[in-house]
């Protein structure tokens, strides 16, 4: 990783510290600054309220030319998070072809929060969950809340 990239990650960490989005905590290890651990509370107005989610943000060597990789370490029932042990996300600015270097970690974190409040079923990584979200919202909400209780407490 280039010195420029490291400098930028440090700078971004500083910015995040100054202005951490509410309900979020960042664990930063200076020895391994390309992997951030993020503790995220389910936003109150969302079905994930009450849950505590652990996320990992990994910065590629080419950062900021390539997007950071976000994965949910805590299982979550969500159309935009892969329903496997990876818990990966790939939408909007996180998509390699949509990522622009001036995008920042803060905006990625905000995007995740927004998605918890309002999933984007049109750009889903889990089509069946997206379909349920669109067609059978009651069932979706039930399972999502159930998972919060089961995995995210």
């Amino acid at each position, binding site marked *: 990783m280039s010195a*420029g990239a490291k400098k*930028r990650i440090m*700078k*971004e960490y500083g910015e995040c510290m100054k202005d951490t989005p509410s309900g979020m905590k960042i664990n930063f290890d200076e020895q391994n600054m390309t992997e951030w651990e993020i503790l995220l509370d389910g936003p109150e107005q969302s079905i994930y309220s009450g849950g505590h989610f652990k996320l990992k943000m990994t910065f590629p060597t080419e950062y900021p*030319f390539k997007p950071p990789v976000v994965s949910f370490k805590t299982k979550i029932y969500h159309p935009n998070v892969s329903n496997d042990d990876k818990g990966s996300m790939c939408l909007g600015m996180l998509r390699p*072809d949509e990522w*622009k*270097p*001036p*995008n920042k970690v803060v905006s990625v974190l905000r995007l995740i929060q927004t998605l918890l409040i309002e999933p984007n079923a049109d750009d889903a990584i889990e089509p069946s969950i997206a379909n349920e979200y669109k067609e059978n919202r009651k069932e979706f909400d039930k399972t999502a809340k159930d998972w919060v209780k089961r995995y995210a407490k």
Partner: protein
Amino acid sequence: MADPATEDEHEEELNTLQSIYPELSISSRSPYVAEIDLVVAPVKPLLVSFVEEQGSHRLSYLSPLNITITLPEGYPAEEPPRLKLTTTPRWIPDTVLKKLQAECQSLWEEYGGMPILFAYISYLQESVETAFGLLDPSNKTPLELPRDMKPELLDFNAKMKREIFDKETFDCGICLEPKKGAACYRIERCGHVFCTPCLQDFYNNAVAEGDVNSVKCLDPSCGKTGDTRADRRQKPRLLSPKELLQVPLKKDVVKRFAEMRRKKKIEADKTIVNCPRKWCQGFARSDKYPKITDVTLLEDSDSEPEPEPEPEAHAVPPNPPEPEPEPEPSKNQEHDIEKRPGGVSTDRLAICEDCNLAFCSVCLASWHGDFVYCGPRKEAELSEEDQASLNFILAHTSPCPYCSVPSQKMHGCNHMTCSQCKTHFCYLCSSWLDPGNPYEHFNNKKKKECFQRLWDLEEGDGGDAAEAQAQFWEQEALRLQMEEVRVHEGGGGNT
């Protein structure tokens, strides 16, 4: 003789003026002569156009008004200062200059013989804001200027813009560091600014990885209207090779970028065929995708016509297109081919842009002239009848190895003589046969395909002859079968 008091007064006034305007220079030859340049930067860019040229330019900076002041002995009591107002090039119309000069006279009269230089220069400075009244409030009618002033005025405007830009500070969105304009680049189309090293890193990387579609402005909001669907449909606006050289990227990187863009475009175009030589595989020459001869002249990366950009003052005058080193098959030639008797409706002649091989774009053989039949032809060109006859030709004829004319054998041996060019050839494999010893071909053990097959298809190939033959054998088979059954039946009866 000059009154020493007046002399002092003159000197004093000019010195005072110099302390207010440090750019004022007092002549080394006479302490009563001074000159000052006023850069003309109107509040809004001045719209100008050049005689006999389309389009207009918005100039934010115009070459300065030079004021040479000579203080006569009688100044200020009896005489106004003598003035010379000039610009290089002379873009301010003479009538306007006269008016500005007359203003000095009336100011002097108004002040009743008091020193007026400061007042006058302030007046001129104020007038600069409206470009001495030349700035049209609606900003629609351009100021028309002689064409020969164009390079100088555009250069000056660009130079001033650059100077001002260089002194500004920008926060680069990539490294997140504040950078001086001198280390930054402003993208022409959208005006977004990034620091040069970051842009170079990103674009070099994108070109090296072959990701040409990333070579566009890096601002996340750039080109986004908010309507995701419309935005997704919109093609990315790539930077032109010409602009990439200004960033600057190295010429060979820009060249690679331009070549890749061109290759992608051609590959998407099904009308362009590749050279049939295996070691070459170049594209057929085409007017639509001229070969890149000089990347510095490539102003566009996108093939589709772009909306006319606002003619910006710093836009460099368009260069004439590079003359092609080799003459392309012109429209006229194509036309001639169509007119030739027996000519084909589409021009099949293709020439490889790399190895110059002339070949047929349909059958991919080296060029056989206009009159030779070849296939496969495009399905769209063929009527049902054509298709049927084509199928028959493929199934029941062999082409002459010399002129490609399809021949159908009606009967006899497989030693053929072309009815068109009299070439001797083998009906089975279309090989050329030596007219002196044509049958050797069928007696040569090495030619496994045709060995001992001189009389294959003796009754002819296809058509009536073959049908008759086929029918005969069918009948014969049926007859034999029946006979066999009868024998069996008979046998059965015996037991």
